[in-house]
């Protein structure tokens, strides 16, 4: 008896007890479904994290002012000595492997163009900012070092700002926008970055030369003349970031005259590292899902074994007949094994569809890319088939080793 024929017999037998077959495969459906969800969610989340790390800029470190502690009480962020142009220059000069470095002085303000206005985040940055963040100007140009130094009133705007202020289709380039009543000329539109990991729109932003922005636009009263907010540094690919981080910390402690043993009033942060830690948490979730699917497949497999044992008992006479007309033990074994595997594969198929739907919903609501790979489906179906073979073997063997005489006589 060839496998195709066994498969047809199996389908016939399963159709005869359709409801029973479907109920039996529930465990397999859930098991396979969660494999699909697991792989899709895992891959989707990972690709999202990769995208975010890329958006933050790889090989970059951030130097952020910390909080001063007075009598053990935290004064909050920014209550300490600001980070200055001098710090930036020192890092560039004394730390090896710096590719680009920029300050980032952030604030928010209303922007007006004609009779349209939009409140957005305004950042004063150095000309190297775009290199640090690997953020291309899509349309127009960046500002030059000279323009940055001279405090030219130029603006590079994000996609969202361009859309909000120039939604009428006019080219933003060369146009004048007013920020806190100061006119700026738009010279560039940045490429899209999408949402950050915290859900904020990274394209809702305007970049100004830090000298033009400082004080007037994003200054608070306490901002001293050469404050640059925070520093972002991009290093060469062969620089060890942990070592660079330590070197910067040492340099900053020196510059701020922090006594040995005293607490730092600044932080050096590696955001990509932070994102990777979040990925690790995600992979824990993936493992949980993997455990769920493994347990479901085992429970489902036991269900399959149970129903196959029932089937063997119900069809004892048929087995006897098949033996009488020349079926070998192997033929009988194969028939029931194929039936168990068919049952599992049908369950697997339903599971793939349900899992696909769940993965789609999860990915859509989390705004991840939907990643249901061929490999995941193959792995899930292979797991279903393996469950069928493993748990179908015992009932099939029982059928194959029936005594033909007793089998023929059974009622």
């Amino acid at each position, binding site marked *: 008896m060839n496998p195709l024929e066994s498969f047809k017999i199996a389908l016939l037998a399963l159709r005869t007890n359709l409801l029973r077959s479907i109920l039996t495969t529930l465990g397999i459906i859930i098991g396979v479904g969660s494999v699909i969800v697991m792989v899709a969610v895992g891959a989707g989340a990972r690709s999202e994290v990769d995208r975010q790390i890329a958006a933050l800029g790889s090989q970059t470190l951030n130097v952020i002012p910390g909080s001063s502690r007075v009598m053990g009480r935290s004064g909050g962020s920014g209550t300490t000595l600001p980070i200055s142009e001098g710090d930036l220059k020192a890092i560039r000069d004394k730390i090896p492997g710096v590719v680009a470095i920029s300050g980032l002085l952030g604030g928010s303000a209303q922007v007006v163009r004609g009779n349209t206005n939009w409140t957005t985040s305004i950042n004063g940055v150095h000309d190297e900012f775009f290199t640090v963040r690997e953020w291309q100007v899509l349309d127009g140009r960046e500002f030059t070092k000279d323009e940055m130094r001279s405090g030219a009133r130029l603006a590079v705007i994000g996609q969202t700002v361009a859309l909000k202020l120039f939604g009428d289709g006019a080219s933003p380039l060369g146009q004048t926008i007013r920020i806190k009543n100061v006119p700026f000329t738009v010279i560039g539109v940045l490429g899209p970055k999408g949402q950050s990991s915290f859900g904020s729109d990274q394209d809702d932003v305007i970049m100004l030369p830090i000298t033009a922005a400082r004080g007037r636009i994003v200054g608070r009263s306490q901002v001293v003349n050469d404050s640059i907010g925070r520093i972002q540094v991009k290093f060469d690919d062969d620089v060890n970031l942990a070592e660079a981080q330590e070197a910067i910390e040492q340099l900053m402690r020196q510059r701020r005259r922090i006594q040995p043993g005293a607490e730092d009033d600044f932080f050096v942060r590696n955001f990509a590292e932070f994102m990777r830690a979040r990925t690790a948490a995600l992979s824990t979730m993936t493992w949980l899902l993997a455990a769920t699917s493994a347990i479901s497949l085992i429970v489902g497999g036991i269900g399959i074994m149970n129903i196959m044992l029932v089937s063997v008992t119900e069809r004892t006479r048929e087995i*006897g007949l098949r033996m009488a*007309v020349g079926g*070998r*033990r192997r*033929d009988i074994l194969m028939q029931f094994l194929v039936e168990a595997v068919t049952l599992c594969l049908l369950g697997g198929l339903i599971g793939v569809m349900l899992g696909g739907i769940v993965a789609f919903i999860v990915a859509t609501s989390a705004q991840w890319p939907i990643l249901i790979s061929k490999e995941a489906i193959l792995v899930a179906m292979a797991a279903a088939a393996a469950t069928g073979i493993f748990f179908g073997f015992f009932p099939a063997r029982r059928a194959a080793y029936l005594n033909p*005489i007793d089998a*023929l006589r059974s009622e």
Partner: protein
Amino acid sequence: MSDASTSGAPRPASGAPPLIGARGISKVYRMGDQTVRALDDVSLEIRSGEFVAIMGPSGSGKSTMMNLIGALDVPTSGVLEIDGRDIAKQSSDELADLRNRTIGFVFQQFNLLPRTDALRQVMLPLAYARPRPTNAEELARHRLEQVELGNRLDHHPRQLSGGQQQRVAIARALVNAPKLLLADEPTGALDSRTSEEIMRLFCRLNDEGITVVLVTHEMDVAAYAKRRIMFRDGKIIEDIAQPGVPLAAHPRAAE
């Protein structure tokens, strides 16, 4: 059926080995502490082309004998040869192949598969044949025509009468051109009219050359056979040639 050209002769005097050759066979079942001697030192020969009725009350050993002749079981002692093969020396697979090639089974309860049409019922043994015939469907159709069911190929058991079901079963038994047709109470579930129809079919098949062994406890069914073997308490107590009722001359065939 090739060596069955001597149809009609109950015991052809040829030197060819018998189709069934039993020499001093016993079958002992152990049930708990007790042992039951279902067959006790039985010797028997059945040659090609014979039409034999095996009779006896229940517990006489006739069913055990049938299981052995059908290669479904092996004797505890003694030698049983089927078509020249010592079945005690055959593996489980070889016994399966022997049943497939050499023996066609007909059962009291027909033993048809549910929800399967007549054509597929008859093709079943061919699915286990080695090598697989390429014209399985054609062979099955031919056998169904032979039992006058050529117009019922797509009928399921539920759509067929008892007699028709048994004829499907007979077609199935014949499909692999076996040397021996082994029928266990083939008329047990049928009314007398249909029984007669089935028995006439067996007679005709025997006339065409196939060896028929029939297990029954009904005298008038056994009367169709040309040889009658009576079992009691695991032994043969009678083994006689019967005139063999010519089809047309049978009292009920003329009705």
